[in-house]
């Protein structure tokens, strides 16, 4: 007995290609803060932050959670997510660790965070 299955092969191939790493072995994700003074606040270790927060609000979690960021990417890829999705999830993870460390005066710096593929 034969069973026929109708498959829209072009659509399936397109979906698999979108999820594939082929041709996308190198992608760059940018995570940061767009406020014009973000670098100044980030690098200035001599500055006091009486209302909380600290300098190196992005570098410190990026270094501390370096291994965990890699695990987020790996887990997403193992779950058949695309490389882009995996990287964006890793960026979101880093920002979740970074935002609580951002010094808050007006909140503009904290709200200027971004996470984007380039």
């Amino acid at each position: 007995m034969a069973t026929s299955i109708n498959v829209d092969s072009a659509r399936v191939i397109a979906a698999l290609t979108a999820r594939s790493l082929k041709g996308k072995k190198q992608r760059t994700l940018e995570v940061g803060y767009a406020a014009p003074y973000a670098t100044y606040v980030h690098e200035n270790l001599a500055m006091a932050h009486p209302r909380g927060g600290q300098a190196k609000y992005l570098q410190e979690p990026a270094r501390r959670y370096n291994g965990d960021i890699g695990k987020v990417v790996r887990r997403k890829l193992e779950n058949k997510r695309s490389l882009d999705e995996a990287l964006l999830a890793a960026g979101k993870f880093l920002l979740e660790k970074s935002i609580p460390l951002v010094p808050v005066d007006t909140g503009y710096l904290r709200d200027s965070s971004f996470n984007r593929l380039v």
Partner: protein
Amino acid sequence: MDLPLIHSPADIVRRALIADGAGTAPESGQAWPVFSSKEPNTPDQVITVYNTAGFSDGRFMVDGELFYHPGVQVRVRSLTSPLGATKAESLRNFMARLHNESITLGGTPYTLFCLGKITEVRELGDESPTSKRQIFTIEAVAALRRVS
């Protein structure tokens, strides 16, 4: 296994900068004194080394030693931008050349193998809105060990 550090990485790097002539000891009263962790208000032109977050670089499978490279920031404050930029660039070159430096702090010997991941010089601009002093920073991670 590595012995725990008694002095901070910033103190050790500061001593290396002084020992090799990239800066001077504050008590000597000469130009470009080098401080660690706290930048004084005077003189105008100073170098300050800060501790920053470092990298954990895995574990040695034989004895379980954890490889950790502490981070440091070298900060230059100067009266004018060209002077600060020149000093910061020369410090950066000096940091890149550091190799197997033997340093003793309070009787404790250390070896500073090298400084790695040295960034370009970052110009932060005015120290504060009311100050004309210029700030420059350089980041690095240190490979160092307490000898005994």
